[in-house]
């Protein structure tokens, strides 16, 4: 069986042989993995595939295997969020997206590695050790959905689900040379996704090509009454896949090409924009003056929400529990032992930002900046159809290179986190290489205009071959 298959190819294989054989193939590949992409491989995957065969399931994803980020609840599998504090916790309910996938016939291969509670851009903060980038095993895959991106790039799953709070789908997609979508806030129910920063995050699909992203979106998106922030946009994602960008107006925000941008990244992104021009689109520079405050605003909001979200991990009901002479001592010890350095840092900073005397100075100010950033997007996107920019200013860095320097690491989210503040959709697609490392092009659209984003990404893909390149390290 071919190592890298699109969903259509997987379905053909299932047609020729069986879901069981396809799942067995992926389990074989996973067994030989060099990247530590999975925290837990499902022991029930084969059984599930057999059942699909036996039932002659006719769902849109019947028998198609998928990898799931470890912060998305799946009955029968542990949900650790890359943290020790959730040791032994297995959710008794499925996330909304999992219900949708299972109904569509998908086979869950396992849970993928991630930065602890999705806090990071390198997957190094995971309690389960870092995941390697398939293009260079000494490098990070990006994060926080590093496992979900790396297993797709390494052929260990045809596609996967991640989550994106400040770039956590797009960053690893760019670093691993795959496609990753951060949908509009509200497009997909967050029910069953362990919250890091509720007002910012969305589940997002990762795949080897744009079509598979749309296939997945058609299954998982839509309204869910259990998530009050979800909206029924009635979008038909696969229908958007039309190879035509004639008349498309592209905005290029110069603020996304900051000082630290790698020259090869800048060049690759401009090449892509010129490619669109060749295909009949036009581009203009746009200005988004408040983008420079986005990173600070993003981190204050995300950490504030996180400090509250992570309060429930107190050892009382589930997960890790240390002994203490009384309840408060038990909670302190459990949290001291259970959380890693980065999670602790963000809990402390978020607690600080919300505290009396600092609340207005930090948290409220961050909310005001968020409004201004949103207005920047509204304004820019009123003049053009889409915005294009580098996903990440630099290619994947070495494991251990930045982990001791959190501020530098935070800076790598500079181009991705403004999108989460604004809640707009954004996709990262492969657009080139530097020293054998993939580069991602970020395409940003209006709220719920995933069709425009997908159409542009699809057209680019049909006219380039970056997405067909495979990492030799894991071949």
């Amino acid at each position: 069986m071919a190592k890298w298959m699109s969903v259509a190819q997987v379905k053909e294989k299932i047609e020729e042989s069986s879901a069981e054989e396809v799942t067995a193939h992926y389990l074989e590949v996973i067994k030989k993995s060099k990247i530590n992409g999975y925290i837990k491989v499902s022991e029930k995957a084969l059984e599930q595939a057999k059942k699909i065969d036996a039932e002659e399931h006719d769902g849109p994803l019947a028998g198609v295997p998928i990898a799931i980020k470890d912060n998305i609840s799946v009955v029968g599998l542990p949900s650790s969020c890359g943290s020790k504090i959730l040791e032994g916790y297995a959710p008794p309910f499925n996330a909304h997206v999992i219900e949708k996938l299972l109904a569509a016939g998908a086979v869950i291969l396992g849970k993928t590695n991630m930065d602890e509670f999705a806090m990071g851009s390198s997957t190094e903060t995971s309690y389960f050790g870092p995941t390697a980038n398939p293009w260079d095993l000494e490098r990070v895959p990006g994060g926080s959905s590093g496992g979900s991106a790396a297993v797709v790039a390494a052929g260990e799953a045809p596609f996967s689900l991640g989550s994106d709070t400040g770039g956590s789908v797009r960053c690893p997609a760019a670093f691993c040379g795959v496609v990753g979508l951060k949908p509009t806030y509200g497009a997909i129910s967050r029910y069953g996704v362990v919250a890091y920063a509720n007002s910012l995050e969305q589940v997002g699909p990762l795949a080897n090509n744009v079509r598979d992203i749309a296939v997945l979106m058609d299954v998982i998106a839509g309204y869910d009454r259990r998530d009050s922030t979800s909206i029924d946009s009635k979008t038909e994602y696969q229908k958007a896949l039309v190879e035509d960008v004639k008349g498309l107006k592209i905005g290029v925000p110069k603020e996304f090409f900051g000082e630290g941008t790698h020259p090869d990244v800048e060049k690759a992104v401009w090449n892509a924009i010129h490619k669109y021009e060749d295909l009949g689109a036009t581009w203009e520079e746009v200005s988004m003056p408040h983008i420079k405050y986005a990173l600070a605003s993003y981190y204050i909001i995300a950490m504030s929400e996180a400090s509250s979200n992570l309060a429930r991990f107190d050892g009382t009901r589930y997960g890790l529990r240390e002994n203490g002479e009384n309840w408060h001592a038990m909670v302190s010890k459990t949290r001291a032992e259970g959380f890693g350095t980065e999670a602790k840092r963000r809990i402390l900073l978020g607690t600080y930002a919300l505290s009396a005397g600092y609340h207005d100075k930090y948290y409220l100010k961050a909310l005001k900046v968020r409004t201004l950033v949103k207005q920047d997007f509204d304004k820019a996107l009123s003049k053009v159809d889409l915005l294009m920019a580098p996903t990440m200013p630099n290619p994947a860095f070495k494991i251990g290179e930045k982990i001791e320097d959190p501020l530098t690491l935070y800076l790598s989210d500079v181009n991705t986190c403004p999108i989460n503040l604004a809640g707009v959709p954004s996709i990262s697609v492969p657009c080139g290489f530097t020293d054998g490392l993939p580069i991602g092009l970020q395409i940003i659209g209006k709220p719920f205009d995933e069709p425009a984003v997908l159409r542009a990404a699809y057209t680019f893909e049909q006219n380039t071959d970056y997405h067909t390149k495979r990492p030799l390290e894991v071949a």
Partner: protein
Amino acid sequence: MVYENPDGVRIGLEIHIQLNKLKTKMFCGCSTDYHNAAPNTHTCPVCLGLPGTLPVLNKKAVEAAIKVGLALEGEIAEETQFHRKNYFYPDLPKGFQITQYDFPIVSNGKVVIEGEDGEHAVGITRAHMEEDPGKLVHIGSIGKSKGVLIDYNRSGMPLIETVTEPDMRSPKEARRFLDKFRNILEYLDVFDGNLEGAMRVDANVSVHWGTRVEIKNISSHKGVERALLYEIMRQKNVIRRGGKVSQETRHYDEGRGVTLSMRTKEEAEDYRYFREPDLMPMQVTDWIPAIKETLPELPDAKRSRFIEQYGITDMHAKSLTSKIMLADFYEDVCAEGVDPKIAATWTADVFLGELNYRDLAISSYDGKKISFIHAKDPKIKNSFKVSDMVELVNLFAEGKISDRAAVEVIRTMLDTTEEKTPSHIIEEKGLFKAEDDLVTKAIAETIAENEAAVQDYLGGTEKSLNFLVGQVMKKTKGTADAKTTRELIIKELKG
């Protein structure tokens, strides 16, 4: 008369009430009917706060809150939203409570109570919605507990927290406010005050317009009055000794009837409020007209109508409307064509008095019978039928039974759960008024048989008359009317 408030007492209350008449919890579909259920059986991933769960607002809870706001004559916010109140406690499964902060659904209301000097308005600062935490159950007594168990059945129960202005000037006014407030809530049919944990009160009190002290978590109206009486005395003593009352939170020890310091102002917690990102702000203005239509007649309006319609005294009207179920019972009794004034006496004075004497609290009324349970022992319960009250009032009005007999009937009915009508009991106990000739005969016999007593009475010993009346009563098995008998004996002996 104007109340002088000699000690400069100011009392404000914060009252948590459970919207326990709603079917489901505040943010999930779990049933609110957990009071007799095994621990942790009325829970789901949402009210257990499992990772990945999200709150979904119960629309009925918002409607109930608006109803309460309208009944308290408050303003309903055009836009209202929820916040997180962050603190660690084992009964709080998410590590934060979803509550309202700077956009409460209700503000600027009032409740008029019977104050120290007549009608007195108590301002309602605000009323907001929030979720209840779970409940800690200590193994053994709190002091010597070997461990704590947590029951999350209560977790996520819809609550309304009402904050009053410091407008009450005495513990008695505080208690009257609570009685009135509870009464209003029960009229609205959003609240059953008899259920365990239905109402919890924090009281703020200061004397001589000084520093206020908060007393936390008092569970009964009587408890509030007692805690405040103690606390006012304590503060006055502190000042008398030349000390200063310090701003602090105190706990009321119900057993000892004292308040004890819990924490000072410096130790006050920082709850780090911020808007709950999983719930969207709500615009509720459009809901108000429809909710207004569902508002029932409230206690004060009903009281005025009773005076007008039934011609009863204000005291009776007040008493009858102090409980919606009692008011409904009374109206249904009157609807059967009995004399409303007599019915008011027997319902408000005797029936209600006998219930209070027995510590029985009215718990429901189904249109046919009014039910009640013992305030401390819910296993003791009983009911009283409309038809029984109608029969009793008619028998009394027709002069067939004495007032003593009628009281006896009510007592008997409250003390037995056997199905017996008043006539049944009257028959069994021989309570019908005795025939006149029977009494005359008994008097003649008594005079003949007790010459010594007759002579004593005629000689001026008044006590002897009582003895003679007693003898007549004995002969008539208590069916003679004591007052009439007395008059008849005097007439016989003195002419």
